[in-house]
């Protein structure tokens, strides 16, 4: 874990021993580059890298690759996300080569939400590969210069490879094992699903550390600030794999509606401070969905500014 494999700023931050901060940008539902630039402005100086989602929740949005390029031009180190739902192995390998050629340094390999929940449920399923197979494929392209079929690439893509894992999905007993599989396949870093249940996250981290994974992969804890009681309830009941404890909802309820957002930011800062103390956590992944303006406040409030010079 000493030599740098890529030009990724995120890799440099993590390998230099700093607690990393990554953010997220959701692209617009239109051919509008300004929408990305506006979000980018809000994140400037607050993050080491910024993820761009790939038609998240199976809803059509501007492509992750295009949005990554716009953010790169603004000086960011973007994290390209590719889901297995929409592209086969041919298209994915092609996009990887394209991304690397454009100077994108980070890639997150994901399964993707099923299209049934999205805005085009009649679409054909792809899922040619799963996220673990994708990780192995990218690693081979980068480290051996080979395509999935074993043939040589003319130039290797230099990508810092990431995966996602959800400590709160079922069955709980295998979630750390699944992480181990992703690490074995080739993940350099992992971003978790957003955490609200800290005790459960601590339990997962303990299992992860017990099998020594924290020394093989950089783990970034997912954080999402709650805007309101409504949002908390929505996440709790409508989003699969999300664990929102009732105490959090009660805490938000105990505050007048106009103040709930402020309380949500406070909660996020407290959670970051507590999570930083957990052994094996190397950073946070801040997903302030449609609330990017709060990122600076949260990162600053948690004492994570300024971001390091690497």
């Amino acid at each position: 874990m000493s030599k740098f494999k890529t030009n990724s700023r995120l890799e440099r931050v993590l390998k230099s021993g700093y607690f990393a901060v990554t953010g997220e940008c959701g692209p617009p539902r239109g051919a509008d580059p300004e929408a990305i630039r506006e979000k980018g402005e809000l994140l400037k100086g607050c993050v080491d890298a910024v993820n761009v989602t790939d038609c998240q929740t199976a809803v059509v949005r501007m492509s992750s690759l295009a949005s990554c390029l716009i953010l790169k031009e603004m000086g960011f180190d973007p994290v390209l996300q590719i889901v297995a739902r929409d592209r086969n192995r041919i298209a994915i390998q092609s996009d990887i080569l394209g991304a690397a050629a454009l100077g994108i340094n980070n890639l997150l390999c994901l399964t993707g939400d099923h299209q049934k929940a999205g805005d085009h449920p009649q679409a054909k399923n792809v899922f040619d590969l799963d996220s673990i197979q994708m990780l192995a494929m990218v690693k081979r392209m980068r480290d051996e210069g080979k395509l999935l079929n074993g043939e040589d690439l003319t130039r290797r893509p230099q990508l810092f490879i990431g995966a996602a894992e959800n400590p709160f999905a079922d069955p709980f007993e295998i979630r750390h094992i699944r992480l181990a599989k992703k690490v074995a396949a080739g993940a350099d870093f992992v971003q978790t699903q957003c955490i609200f249940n800290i005790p459960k996250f601590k339990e997962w981290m303990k299992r992860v550390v017990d099998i020594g994974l924290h020394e093989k992969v950089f783990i970034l804890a997912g954080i999402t600030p709650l805007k309101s009681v409504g949002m908390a309830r929505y996440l709790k009941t409508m989003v699969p794999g999300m664990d929102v404890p009732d105490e959090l909802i009660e805490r938000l309820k105990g505050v007048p509606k106009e103040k709930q957002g402020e309380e949500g930011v406070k909660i996020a800062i407290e959670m970051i401070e507590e999570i930083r103390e957990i052994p094996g956590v190397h950073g946070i992944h801040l997903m302030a969905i449609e609330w990017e303006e709060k990122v600076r406040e949260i990162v600053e409030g948690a004492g994570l500014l300024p971001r390091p010079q690497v």
Partner: protein
Amino acid sequence: MVVGEQKPLEEILKMIEPFDRLIIAGCKGCVAVCAAGGEREVRFLASAVRTARKAQGREIEIREVTLERQCDPEYVEQIRGFVYDYQAILSLACGVGVQYLAEHYGRIPALPGINTTFVGGAEKQGVWSEKCQCCGNCVLHLTGGICPITRCSKSLLNGPCGGSSNGRCEIDPQVTCGWQLILERLKELEQMDRYLEIIPPKDWSQSRDGGPRKIIREDLLR
């Protein structure tokens, strides 16, 4: 077996609208077992169609016939004697049967009376569920006898995904998470070490993705 469901009656009536002499052909195979197109269903449908026509003041002559199987040239040939006395055949067999009829009796339209849905089996009387995707390369020995291609909504070979919740699939709480079932079975069989292995990408060329398939058994040819 192949499982299907009769098309809505309105759709069938629309399909047979131009015809006054019609064969309704059932099948004693899979569709009889799932009560979609067997002899009983042929009788009922023929009666319903006649009733509908009479109510409109129109007549229709329906020949009811139920073949042993419609996926076999030998049985499909059995109606050659009278088939061209009619204007169309409404087949209540699966898509295979409809195509066989169309191929053998190309001068009149062969119409599908059922929507062929999946390959599966009965859970109990009246309930059938999908079990097999006919991927052409069975890996059930690796997953405790539960098919990840079929039972996992995303066909993951290295599941479960992060949307598995309480043993339910993210697409519908009525759908069991296939990988939850696989893990439970692997545990029961004491094969959890299998789970640590990464299953490589599937060769989809052996499934329908590779084009329509054919099997030739040299040892059985005459």
